[in-house]
């Protein structure tokens, strides 16, 4: 199969489509709910179709459609669909479709919908851009764009708390973005375009030989910058605060957009800019591994202390997202596979949980874990979805979480850092400690309150949650089906290690 012109245009089209949605939605009047929904859903669906159409091209044929234009002399903006981009953009576009449906239900009858969906679409644009970026500069641009367009979403309710959280969010992420910018600029001086290539970008190896110090400083700058969004401890402070955002925004923030963008960036830097070999020769992976481990444990510990459901979920994200970094830094094929596949799995599981948290809050007003007794009787389907998501987080088969955890465990054993496995186990133990009591309370206690009748679960919000919950099981159980995330992740990590003797 040859790449047709269409294939070259698809990356650009993906970005422009989301942008066009924003441009169409912003001028709409508040009342044009239907029109807005149609525009949103049509474009989201078209995008999913577009990206899925690339599956055979990229995975089957190993071709990478790309679009490029000049940014400044010597530096191009490149959009390219490689395996990792495909994986991530599929995740983001499909979860986005679901979140849009959810958000339409969630915002029903609430103000500022045009603004919300406009920025929502911009957020998609940035996210798609991030996933398709073919080099570091392009990535950086979209990454910063994401920072900015998320601000109005976090501040959406306009309460003092929301505006404050949004301000702190900006403070953190802008600083991180600047640090990243500096790293990127610096690296670019030495190597020109830092093109993403499995196993390391051109020129970086030379730089590492020419001046290891500079290479290390740049790496620290890059990871330090990305670490803010990916909420590596101690840069995670904004994340628990940002949960004041509307539920669909939290869902996105945690599952595919901001946090994921950071982690995705770390994957890109470690795998496709420095390359695992160079990074590990520079002695950079072990410190990162330690930080990731600390983050995992600290996040879990903080999650245990929270009684507010969304806060608990937020800290859980802090912990879970670092699994990805953990997987990468173990520098083994299985570990990288586990990390990359967790990128997808965590997204689906966490979005399920946040969907459910939003459902609980919207329909019964429950936000505190203590009030969740017997909620399974009142909102059985939501509770079911929540349970599946939570079991996934703990890593119980056949959910997707198990697949990640198993891969990571094998990766840890393959590497020289077997102690990591205790981190994984401790984390899954802590995960059980903060999720199982919720599930237990949900199903095995009778509701406390007098009016314990079943409540109507809004369909527009319920279905996305059920679909993602189904995906949690589906992707986990069907992990070995062709084109399942696990397979793609394996392909990616084999690419990363193709010119490295696997340790």
């Amino acid at each position: 199969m040859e790449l047709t012109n269409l294939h070259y245009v698809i990356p650009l089209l993906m970005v422009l489509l989301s942008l066009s949605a924003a441009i169409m939605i912003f001028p709409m009047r508040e009342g044009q709910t239907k029109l807005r929904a149609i525009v949103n859903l049509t474009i989201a669906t078209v995008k999913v179709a577009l990206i899925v159409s690339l599956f055979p091209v990229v995975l089957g044929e190993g071709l990478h459609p790309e679009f490029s234009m000049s940014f400044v002399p010597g530096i191009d903006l490149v959009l390219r669909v490689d395996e990792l981009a495909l994986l991530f953009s599929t995740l983001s576009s499909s979860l986005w479709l679901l979140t849009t449906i959810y958000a339409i239900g969630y915002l029903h009858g609430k103000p500022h919908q045009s603004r919300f969906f406009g920025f929502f679409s911009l957020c998609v644009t940035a996210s798609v851009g991030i996933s398709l970026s073919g080099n570091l500069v392009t990535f950086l641009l979209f990454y910063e764009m994401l920072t900015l367009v998320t601000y109005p979403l976090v501040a959406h309710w306009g309460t003092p708390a929301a505006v404050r959280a949004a301000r702190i969010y900006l403070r953190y992420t802008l600083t991180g973005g600047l640090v990243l910018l500096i790293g990127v600029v610096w690296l670019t001086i030495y190597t020109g375009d830092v093109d993403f290539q499995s196993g390391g970008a051109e020129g970086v190896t030379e730089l590492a030989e020419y001046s290891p110090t500079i290479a290390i400083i740049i790496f620290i700058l890059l990871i330090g910058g990305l670490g803010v969004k990916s909420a590596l401890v101690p840069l995670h402070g904004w994340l628990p605060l940002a949960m004041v955002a509307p539920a669909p925004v939290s869902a996105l923030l945690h599952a595919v957009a901001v946090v994921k963008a950071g982690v995705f960036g770390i994957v890109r830097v470690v795998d496709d800019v420095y390359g695992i070999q160079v990074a590990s020769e520079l002695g950079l992976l072990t410190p990162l591994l330690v930080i990731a481990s600390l983050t995992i444990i600290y996040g879990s510990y903080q999650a245990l202390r929270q009684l507010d459901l969304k806060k608990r979920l937020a800290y859980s994200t802090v912990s879970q997202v670092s699994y990805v970094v953990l997987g990468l830094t173990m520098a083994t094929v299985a570990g990288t596979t586990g990390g990359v596949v967790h990128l997808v799995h965590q997204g689906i599981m966490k979005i399920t949980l946040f969907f459910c948290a939003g459902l609980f809050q919207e329909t019964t007003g429950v936000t505190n874990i203590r009030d969740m007794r017997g909620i399974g009787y009142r909102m059985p389907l939501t509770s079911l979805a929540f349970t599946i998501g939570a079991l996934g987080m703990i890593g119980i088969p056949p959910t997707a979480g198990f697949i990640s955890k198993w891969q990571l465990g094998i990766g840890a054993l393959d590497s020289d850092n077997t102690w990591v496995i205790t981190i994984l186990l401790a984390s899954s133990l802590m995960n059980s400690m903060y999720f199982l009591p919720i599930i237990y309370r949900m199903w095995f206690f009778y509701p406390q309150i007098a009016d314990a009748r079943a409540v109507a679960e809004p369909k527009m919000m319920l279905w996305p949650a059920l679909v993602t919950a189904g995906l949690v099981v589906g992707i986990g159980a069907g992990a070995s089906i062709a084109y399942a995330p696990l397979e793609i992740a394996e392909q990616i990590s084999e690419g990363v290690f193709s010119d490295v003797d696997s340790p």
Partner: protein
Amino acid sequence: MTLAEFSTGALVLTPLLSAAVMALCTHVLRRLLGVVVAVLIVGFTVPVVIHLGSGEVVEVDLGAYGAPLGIVLRADGLSVLFIAMTSLVGLGITAFAAATPEATGERIQANGQSKTEHAGFWPLWFGCWAGLNAVFVSGDLFNTYVGLELVGLTAVGLVALGGQKSWPAALRYLFIAVLGSLLFLVAVGLLVSVTGTLDINQAAQQLTDNPEAAGVATVAMVLLSIGLAMKVALVPMHQWLVPAHSGAPSAVSPILSALVIKGALFVFLRSWLYVAAPAYSPALTETSGEAPLNVAEALSIVAWVFALLGLIALIVGAIMALRQTRLKPLIAYSTVAQAGYWFLLLPVVFMPTSASLGDPGVTTFDASEVIAGALAGTVGLILGHGLAKSALFLTAGYFKELYGTEKIAALSGEARSHPMMVMTMGLTAIGLAGLPFSLSFTGKWQLTSASLAGGHYWILPVIIVATLLSAAYLLRAFGPLMMDNDQENAAHPELHRNSMPVVAQVAPFTLGVLTLLTGFMGTPIFDLLEVGAPWS
């Protein structure tokens, strides 16, 4: 005479003539004429840009006397970029002013009532525009001086339109502007006395060929730099700017902040990069081996001093902006801060030396690319500032005209009633803070990478701190607008007037959008700057 040459001349003469005509017109006619002429100027810009795009400088010898005696208009890459920015911003401001005549100034009538529409605005504004274009296309230092004076005097007039309260500010501005001009004039005289020519390119060539001129040239550069820095309001010479810019009428503030200071800045850059650098920057003279070392050192000291002042400006301006409670002073201080960026390139231009430059296998830059990159970056920042600042001032003006106030606290919750204006503010905030995809970001990128490639690592913390501070004060202005107060409890400002025309929203919004769209223009800007540059 080709179309491009004709247009180059027309860029100066059209606004000048129209200013004269406007002085004789009625109100309505003035506005109409203003819009027509603004569109015309934009129209004249196009052929010049296209001609430059082909890689050739436009040169018009008025009266065919030839340099050094005749008036030579020369539009090279640097000129045309400033012209283009001025045309776009000018059109936006004209549209805004035409739609909201109240924004043009305040005049006390015979009966003691103040009338909020000023006849003086239109001729002054177009006179100013003519002066700016004259500065940009002038091929010699004399016309530059004349242009600067024209800009300065009209700008003083524009500030004074703001009514009683702005007169002291206007006067102060006048003193500074004239003093700056005088310093510039003396510097020009010194240069002419050693080079024997007013023509910029010839002067540069003379300085290169004539090492004895170096001492005088240095003094000239110092005088000229200080004089122009006063007009640009570089810290600590910025005291005139804030009252002038914030006190001016709504339609005038954007002119002052986005355009007027750019005139002086243009001359500053022209003198340093097109006159001094070819003769004295070690990076450019290395090959000819005739670099008068002591002059280079002296100039690099001056360069460092100005960069340091720029750095102080970035911090002081930002902190002062943070402490404002009204939008317009905040924006004015933001200009003070942003001006700092434009001086950071001087040390890079005069000392682009580092270990990495000697290692072509690792880095991708050489010395002239460093200079080109630094200039391109700075120009990107300047143009981005022009677009964003005009849009921001127009937005502030919009609120001021609508509510009679631009107190930040009073505007809380505006995101609900004026989403488009708040969106514009957001866009300009991105543009001013220099975040993707704005032109300022592209500029910052190039400036930073050129500096780093030149071994100037100090630029890293400067850029980080400056960006964060600017984001902080912009957010301070922007954040409250996102508040969603309850409809009943809202301390919503009383309307000063019932409504504003749509154009008054569209004009700033368009400029705001342009701030972002131009972010993708990095390469064309760089390529244009190479046209007629001494190092290319």
